[in-house]
Structures are given as C-alpha cells and as structure tokens.
C-alpha cells in the first residue's frame, strides 16, 4: 500500500471517510439533543429503567455496608456530639416556641389583611441515590424515584443540609438529578440573600475551590461574608422559596462592573450523597406564589396588587 497522499487517495481511503462522516453524524446528534428537552424519548427511558434495576441491586447493599462503617467510625464521636446536640436542643425548645408564636401572629395578620393563607408548603419524597456519573463532566446522580412516584422535571433535590440539585429528566422508575455543581449555560437558578433580601442568579460553579458563583447582585446590596443564600422561589414555579443553598464566602465585582458577584460555599456535600429528598411544591396557584413571596421588596407588592385584582375571581372559581 502506498502512503502517498493525493486527492484520489484521500477518497479511496475508506477509513478516513468513515471517520469524518461519523464525526459529522456525532455533531448533528449532539446538536439535536443539546437543547432543553421536555421528555426523554422512549428508548432512553426504557434503557434507563432497565439499568436502574441493576443499579438498585448493586448500590443499595454497597451503601448499606458503607453506612455501617461510617456508623462504627461515628461511635467515637458520639459523646462529644451528644453534648453539643443537647445544648442545641435547649435552644430548639425556645426556637420552636418562637416559630409557633410567629406563625400564629402571621395567620392573624393575614386574616386581618383578608389575604388568603398561602404558605409555600412542600412535601418531601425520600429517595435513594443509586448511581452517579463516573466522570466529572456530567455532575449527575440517579435516584430511585421516577414519574410513577410523582417526580417531575425541575423539582428541587435536597439533602438534610441543603439543596444539591434539580431533577433533569425522568423515566418511569428512576430520574436523573443535575447537581448544582453542573450548572450549564442557560440553566440558571434564582437565589436570594436572606438577611438583606437581595436577589441574584446562581449561574456557575468554580471547580477549583468548590464554590458556586452567584451573579447579578445589585451594586448597592450590602453583602457580608457568611450571609445565608436560599432559593428565591421566583422563576421556576416548581422551586419553593427558602431552601438553603449555602453561605457567602467571597465578594467580587461582577463581569461588567455594574453588579456584584459572590462566591457561595454550598451547605450540602456534593460528593457523598446517598439519601436525598425530592421537594414537591404544594402551591398550584400561580397567584399565590407572587403574593406570598415577600412583603419587603416593593416591586413585588405592586405586582401582587395588579395580579390579585385580575386573578382573584378566577382562583376562587377553581376552588
């Protein structure tokens, strides 16, 4: 075989042609599947469901064993932990009394204002993680609940320490959860800094020091280190407000100098996730969300009056 590279040889080289055409097919395929897809196609769902059976079989005993060892290790810390927890418990009694008192007060005030009580209640579905993307390009975990259990796209997934991600796609018996550390272009999360009630958008993850990047915070916002960041509940109607994301670690000027940018240290551990909760928001009325969001930020009160004027009769009609 001669290795002289002429044009005729180029076309005679079957291998190269196949390679090039498969590259083209790949790029077309990627282009088609790249956008945000509402539902996975049936072959995908079928394969994911079948594989999730195997993942269940492997991962559950493995995590049980790992959990056992962690418990053995944890026994050494139990005394110290117990002491701390007991002192926390004393404060908890006070705290829960406060919460009840405030809740009652809130109820009473709402009644006086003639506002319907619209708590942003949510229901938690317990789920076990049965798989995780082996590499770090896709920060994805697979949980053992699917559409049959009422899981829908976009639902927030939390651990006991805070938010870890959102459901990206569902099949019948399993769903794929995109972690916060895998925030892609165009897939942002609206967040709020609770203490100062300033909004921002979580739109990136800094893999070098494991911080989330919160952008588009107003320049005049009085951010301080250590302030809590939670979901705002704006934007996606599936996401309830008040789910803890993390705390502010670093504040820098934003990209164009018109806004501030903050590095957020996530509360939850994105690596060792075994048990999670899927948050199902119970606030079907769109009207309710705008109204109960908060009463401190002025533009939203305006929105609420406009909206309630229009939508209130409709809402009552539904009930």
């Amino acid at each position, binding site marked *: 075989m001669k290795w002289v590279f002429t044009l005729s040889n180029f076309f005679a080289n079957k291998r190269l042609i196949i390679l090039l055409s498969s590259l083209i097919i790949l790029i077309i395929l990627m282009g088609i599947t790249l956008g945000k897809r509402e539902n996975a196609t049936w072959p995908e769902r079928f*394969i994911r469901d079948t*594989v999730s059976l*195997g993942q269940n079989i492997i991962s559950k005993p493995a995590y049980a064993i790992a959990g056992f060892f962690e418990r053995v290790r944890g026994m050494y810390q139990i005394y110290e932990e117990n002491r701390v927890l007991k002192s926390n418990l004393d404060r908890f009694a006070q705290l829960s009394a406060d919460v009840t008192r405030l809740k009652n007060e809130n109820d009473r005030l709402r009644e006086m204002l003639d506002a319907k009580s619209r708590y942003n209640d949510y229901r938690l579905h317990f789920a076990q993680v049965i798989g995780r993307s082996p590499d*770090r390009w896709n920060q*994805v975990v697979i949980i053992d609940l699917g559409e049959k259990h009422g899981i829908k796209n976009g639902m927030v997934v939390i651990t006991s320490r805070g938010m870890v991600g959102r459901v990206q796609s569902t099949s019948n018996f399993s769903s794929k959860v995109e972690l916060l550390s895998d925030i*892609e272009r165009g897939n942002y999360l609206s967040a709020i800094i609770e203490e100062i009630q300033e909004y921002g958008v979580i739109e990136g993850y800094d893999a070098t020091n494991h911080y989330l990047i919160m952008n588009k915070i107003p320049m005049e916002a009085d951010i301080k280190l250590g302030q809590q960041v939670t979901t705002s509940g704006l934007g996606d109607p599936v996401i309830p407000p008040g789910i803890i994301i993390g705390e502010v670690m670093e504040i820098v000027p934003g990209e164009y100098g018109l806004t501030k940018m903050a590095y957020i240290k996530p509360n939850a551990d994105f690596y060792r996730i075994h048990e999670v909760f899927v948050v199902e928001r119970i606030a079907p009325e769109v009207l309710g969300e705008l109204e109960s969001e908060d009463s401190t930020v002025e533009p939203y009160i305006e929105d609420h009056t406009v909206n309630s004027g229009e939508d209130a009769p409709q809402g009552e009609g539904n009930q």
Partner: protein
Amino acid sequence: MISYLWLTLLLFALMLSEGTVLQFISPDAWGGNLQMIPHFVLVGIIYIALYLGRRTGLWFGLTLGLLQDILYSDVIGVYAFGMALVGYFSGLAFKLFHQSLLLVLLTILLSVLIYDLVVYGFFTMFGLVQTGFHWTVMNQLIPTLFLNALFAVLVYIPMGRFLSGISIEQNEHNF
C-alpha cells in the same frame, strides 16, 4: 457466542460499578482536589480491541459508549464516539507490534488520554464544561491516567487469559 455474552455482561457490570461502588476511589470525593476517574470499561474495550481485533473493539465501544451517553449525559454521542474511536484505533496500533505488557500499557495510556481529550474537547466546544485546560490536565487527566494504568496492569493476566481463550475458540470455529 456464549463467551461474547459473558464479555458483554462483564463490561456492563464494570459500567454499573463505575457509577456506584467505585465512586469512593476519586480523592475529590473525600475533599481533595485531584480527580481520579475510573475508565475501567474503556480499559476493557482496549483489551478487547487488542485481543479480538479492532472491529470488535469498535462495536463494543460504540454500544457501551451509547449506554453511558443515555445513562449519565444530557447530550447523546460524545462517549459513543470517543469509545468507538479509541476501540478502533487501539486495535490498529496493536497490529504494528508484538504483544507485551509494556506495549499494552502504552496503548492504554495513550488511548485513555485521547479519550479524555476528545470528551473534554467536545463538551468544551458545546459549552457544557467550564473548567480551564491547564487545571483539567493537572488535576484530572494525569491522576486519571495513573489510576487506569494501575487497573490495566492488575487485570493484565486474567483479562489476557480470558480474551485469548475467546480468540482461540473463535479461530477454531472459523477453520
């Protein structure tokens, strides 16, 4: 044919364990900054390409890559392309030399490197990954190479026996 079924099952089990029990391997799961990603399925595919020919490697790579795409990735095609490419060309490389541990190790190192670069390249091109190149090479590619080379050496003898068994069986069948 039966042995091919076993081979598929073996690779499938490897793929499942990569996503479940092997998560603890990578140091960043313990709070470190290095990422050692097990590409054990890929190592298996390279062994298949070395012993059973590049076409077999190509088909195994394509199937398992597609499976990985569907399971873990949002866009379809990157892993399938990467694994098929590596499966085919590692088989090609073997035609040029004789079989030895050193050659196998070199092929595997090079293949894993190429695979990682292909996947990283495509994800970066489509804006799905935002980590810098230098950081990725230092923190991910090099530790990953070490881990997979270690795995390749560990399974060299059992995998070689298993696959040459299939290879001989196949030849007898053909003659």
